[in-house]
């Protein structure tokens, strides 16, 4: 085993002094912390209440998903993709299936595309609702908005359980389509849940949008400029809140998204309040997409009839496939050497790359704002560390 000798930049936050010879305080937030959204650690240097430096520490949930995928077959990695961003398992499946379909040139029948869109947009709904709930809990509202969000999430999880067999880890997509078709009566029940959703959104908006405490704590906090967002590879609602008009559903037009009419909400300030509002508005657009998809879904096969999964060996080559996951741009990069296992399997995690700017956003803010900023970035440690 060759070990490389290299210059390591040892990073110890030595005791620093600020202006006026005031000693600065270093605190360690996490990895066990009520508001860090999982096992995440931040080394923060403070001058009183103001943040001077912030270095995130990752790896507490590094489960070497990519190494395991090199010893599994292509389909064998599908259940592992559920566990990447565990709030949105079905969109992870979709991104992986899309990448493999690009690699091997597999086509997807129309009904399967509609099923994928329905599953993906339902996932987006429950992810954004829970994110707003978690953000409000971190701001101190003791879980009440989170309870409302989880009430809606339970309705959607019931739909997923009827469709895929599991509440969370659905393992629903296959290369060339979906695993199983809709059970009888599912569309009616889903139609009822989706028709009720705008009422929940109205309730949420009435309680939260004009809320003084929320506005005071989140407006002009953690402002992300447009240029930095593009340079740092920020994607998803966080980039759109800074005014970057880039939604992969509209740019790549993957799957059948060009058949649906929906708008893309953009923010202008790039602060925490804008990120919160963008997600609230995106939920309304998702409801619109769902209603159009459930109205137009055709009959037909749900998986490509030419696709044979036993002995699936894609030709040597590589492919990069990406979708607009609820957190941002989720991409899979696959390198094949003609064998049943991938040679290199890489997940492009939106949460990790959105965290690139955490230090820039937090420097100069108060300690209490770190939690609000982190909550608005929307991270899930299963995806950050893989």
């Amino acid at each position, binding site marked *: 085993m060759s070990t490389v000798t290299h210059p390591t930049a040892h990073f110890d936050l030595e005791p620093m002094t600020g202006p006026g010879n005031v000693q600065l305080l270093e605190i360690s937030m996490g990895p066990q*912390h009520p508001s860090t959204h999982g096992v995440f650690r931040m080394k923060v240097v403070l001058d009183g209440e103001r943040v001077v430096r912030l270095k995130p520490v990752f790896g507490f*949930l590094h489960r070497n*998903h990519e190494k*395991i995928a090199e010893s599994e077959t292509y389909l064998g990695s599908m259940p592992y993709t559920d566990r990447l961003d565990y709030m949105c398992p079905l969109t992870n499946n979709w991104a992986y299936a899309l990448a493999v379909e690009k690699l091997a040139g597999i086509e997807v029948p129309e009904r399967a595309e509609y099923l994928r869109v329905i599953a993906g947009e339902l996932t987006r709904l429950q992810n954004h609702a829970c994110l707003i709930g978690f953000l409000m809990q971190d701001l101190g509202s003791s879980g009440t908005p989170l309870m409302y969000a*989880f009430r809606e999430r339970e309705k959607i999880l019931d739909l997923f359980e009827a469709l895929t067999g599991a509440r969370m880890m659905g393992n629903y997509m296959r290369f060339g389509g979906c695993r199983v078709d809709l059970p009888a009566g599912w569309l009616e029940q889903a139609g009822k849940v989706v028709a009720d959703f705008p009422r929940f959104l109205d309730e949420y908006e009435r309680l939260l949008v004009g809320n003084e405490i929320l506005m005071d704590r989140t407006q002009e906090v953690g402002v992300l400029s447009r240029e930095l967002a593009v340079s740092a590879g920020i994607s998803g609602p966080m980039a759109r809140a800074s005014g970057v008009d880039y939604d992969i559903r509209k740019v790549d037009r993957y799957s059948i998204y060009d058949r649906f009419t929906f708008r893309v909400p953009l923010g202008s300030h790039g602060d925490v309040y804008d990120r919160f509002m963008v997600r609230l508005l995106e939920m309304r657009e998702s409801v619109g997409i769902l209603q159009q998809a459930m109205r137009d879904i055709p009959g037909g096969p749900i998986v490509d009839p030419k696709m044979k999964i036993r002995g699936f060996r894609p030709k040597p080559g590589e492919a990069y496939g990406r979708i607009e996951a609820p957190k941002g741009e989720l991409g899979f990069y696959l390198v094949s050497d003609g064998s049943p296992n991938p040679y290199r399997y890489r997940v492009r995690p939106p949460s990790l790359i959105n965290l690139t700017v955490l230090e820039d956003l937090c420097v100069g803010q108060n300690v209490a704002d770190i939690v609000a900023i982190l909550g608005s970035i929307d991270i899930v440690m299963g995806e950050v560390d893989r």
Partner: protein
Amino acid sequence: MDETLKNELSKQGIFTTSLQELYNWGRTSSIWPLNFGLACCAIEMIAATMARYDLARFGAEVFRPSPRQADLMIVAGTVTKKMAPQVVRLYNQMPEPKYVISMGACAISGGPFKQGYNVLKGIDRYIPVDLYIPGCPPRPEALIDAFMVLQKRIGEQPLTGANRPRHLNAGEPSEFPVPRFGEHDLEPAKNPDLWKPPLVQIAQAGTDESGNH
């Protein structure tokens, strides 16, 4: 105590019990868990505390963020080797009596990520575990069931004698050594006083039985 005598006395407004029942009743009815979710199982744990499944009716009213104020640590999710020393430290900081529930396949034995170089193959290598909940992730009802089993077990613990719980037994340790980061792995890889696994019985050709040593 005679049951009929108990009933007669209670009709007169005199309530009798034993010290063990009273002591255990107080402890089972207010087990406060530590706010400690690692991965996907944490989401099901949160769902178990929300309005639909409501763990608060069983006494887990608040999830405490500080280990000094908690009785129960629900290790929900994969424990990686980078996180393992912090888990053991948190366990050491909890005051007695304390219990550990290992929720999900990953915390029991590494789960689907067992092949991982950074995955600890079960948290019971370093700390004693009272209950295991299999599943990936286990449903919130399974967590409620585990809670009820734990309550029953606490209720049956005698206060004296050989089977008394750990916090009443001065000889039993309540803090366990914290592993260090080595160059390739944690050192030590397991706590040998705590985890004594049966060796794999190497199968003869043609059979695939393995059992206890």
